[in-house]
């Protein structure tokens, strides 16, 4: 089972608050790492470190909205958590994925972080096999047919005058393109598509 770690950037002018939130997160779980801290938006931008989640105090951009847009543009995929320390104009409210306050408890903060990165169990999982290409190449098809017939890598290499290494790389591509990993699964695939006879 894969364990995915998510990075965090905290942008907050108070050192006590920055360090405090970072410690609360790091103490309670190993799911969030690293936690980078920035005193202001400019520092965050010039560091150009990607973060899955950005915790930012809206006071840092309330008077200059362009700064917030800059954050979004350098980190388009990041989730934004606002760190509320005082009353804010309503117009700011809809820009965040989540918000916490300086009075939030450790549990609340972790729950909110998790809520942003974890879908309910089982609905979203890491997909290991991906290929943008669809059809098997002519060579891959030949290798597939040989695999389905039960030939070893060495036999396939000899028959086609290629190296064992090349055979293995074709096999990896076949798995990526079809999503089928086992030899018997590939045999079924070849039979159903009429590449081989029973």
């Amino acid at each position: 089972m894969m364990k995915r770690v998510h990075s965090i950037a905290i942008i907050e002018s108070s050192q006590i608050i920055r360090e405090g939130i970072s410690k609360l997160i790091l103490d309670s779980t190993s799911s969030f790492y690293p936690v980078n801290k920035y005193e202001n938006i400019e520092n965050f931008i010039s560091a150009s470190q990607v973060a899955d989640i950005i915790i930012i105090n809206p006071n840092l951009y309330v008077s200059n909205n362009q700064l917030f847009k800059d954050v979004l543009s350098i980190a388009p995929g990041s989730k934004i958590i606002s760190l509320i320390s005082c009353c804010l104009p309503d117009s700011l409210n809809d820009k965040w994925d989540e918000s916490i306050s300086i009075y939030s408890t450790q549990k609340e903060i972790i729950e909110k972080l998790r809520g942003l990165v974890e879908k309910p169990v089982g609905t979203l999982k890491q997909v290991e096999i991906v290929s943008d290409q669809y059809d098997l190449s002519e060579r891959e098809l030949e290798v597939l047919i040989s695999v389905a017939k039960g030939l070893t890598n060495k036999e396939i290499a000899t028959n086609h005058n290629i190296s064992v290494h090349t055979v293995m790389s074709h096999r990896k591509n076949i798995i990526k393109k079809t999503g089928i990993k086992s030899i018997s699964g590939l045999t079924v695939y070849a039979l159903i598509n009429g590449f081989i006879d029973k």
Partner: protein
Amino acid sequence: MMAIFFTKDQKLSFAIEKNFKIVRILKQLGIRPGFGEKSINDVCHSNNVSPDLFTAILNMTTYTDYEVDSESLSILPTTQLLNYLKLSHKEFINKDLPYIEHSLKEMLSSPDFSYSHSSVFIGFFDEYKSELLSHFDYEDSIVFPYVNGILEGEKFPGYSIEKFKENHTNIESKLSDLKNILLKYFPFSKPYPILYDIVENLYQLEQEFENHAYLEERLLVPHVEFLERRNN
């Protein structure tokens, strides 16, 4: 207030609301329904289930970053854990697999499919099924009795849980092939609702297998390693 992980003093009903997969755990631990608003701790006590074991299973099934600490690992009730894993095997063998097998074979016996396609696919399923059965049988007849043995202080020269750890095969990979072939490559001439039901069941079973293997590798193995060290 929300908890970071499930704790014993939370309501059982709260945990279930958060993760409905817990319902299956209740069944396998033999917990009586009708627990009202009782805490996990109280429900466990009145059902003779170890609250530590129960919360460990709940958390490991729900949170991927949950780690059991070494003290809890050492005091786990071994027999209850083994029973839980055995009952999970029974559920897979007597309920999940036959259900999928039945619906699959019924679907493929329809004249909509060519006999050669159906028989090739059924052959693949049967092969997978026998691999699964021997995987579970190995654990039921070798690994679990071994654990029971060392619990009683017996010595088994030449065998340790390390062997199990090294050879614990992945049973999900062929299951994934089954559903990929069925969903993407099997020739259907018209929409086939039953097919989607079967594929959904295969996905659920795959997740159950993953959770089950995770408990065996992350809970049973370290616990047994502790017992082994204690014996030597």
